[in-house]
């Protein structure tokens, strides 16, 4: 009888979890659409920018490169390898199929 009771409880718990999961799926879907709508709204797009000062304050002392690229642009980073001069090589490759890529060098100095 104990096992049967436990079984019933588990089934009820799983049902509750299923409902919760569906609710989360709906909320996630809704929020993704909301973010898409907000970011594509022309009024919001006009004010969706940061300043050079904003960036320099967050990454103080670093050299910064911002990349603005069309959707679908591929950024690729190979595993760092040792170069011929004994120094490690770090690479970033950017490829766009639908328009030019804009890269800005932002260095406070």
């Amino acid at each position: 009888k104990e096992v049967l009771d436990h079984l019933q409880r588990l089934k009820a718990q799983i049902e509750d979890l299923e409902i919760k999961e569906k609710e989360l799926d709906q909320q996630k879907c809704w929020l993704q659409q909301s973010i898409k709508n907000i970011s594509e709204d022309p009024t919001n797009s006009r004010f969706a920018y940061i300043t050079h000062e904003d960036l320099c304050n967050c990454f103080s002392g670093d050299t910064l490169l911002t990349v603005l690229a069309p959707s679908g642009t591929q950024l690729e980073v190979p595993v760092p390898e040792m170069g011929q001069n004994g120094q490690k090589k770090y690479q970033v490759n950017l490829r766009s199929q639908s328009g030019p890529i804009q890269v800005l060098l932002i260095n406070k100095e």
Partner: protein
Amino acid sequence: SCPSPASAITYKFNGSPSKNLQAINSMIKQGERM
């Protein structure tokens, strides 16, 4: 134009999740530690 290396992490603008960038940063840091 360079061919894509076999061992590379890729991120697509407006297509890939942020965790791909986090994976890239971890890979760079790991390589540095090693």
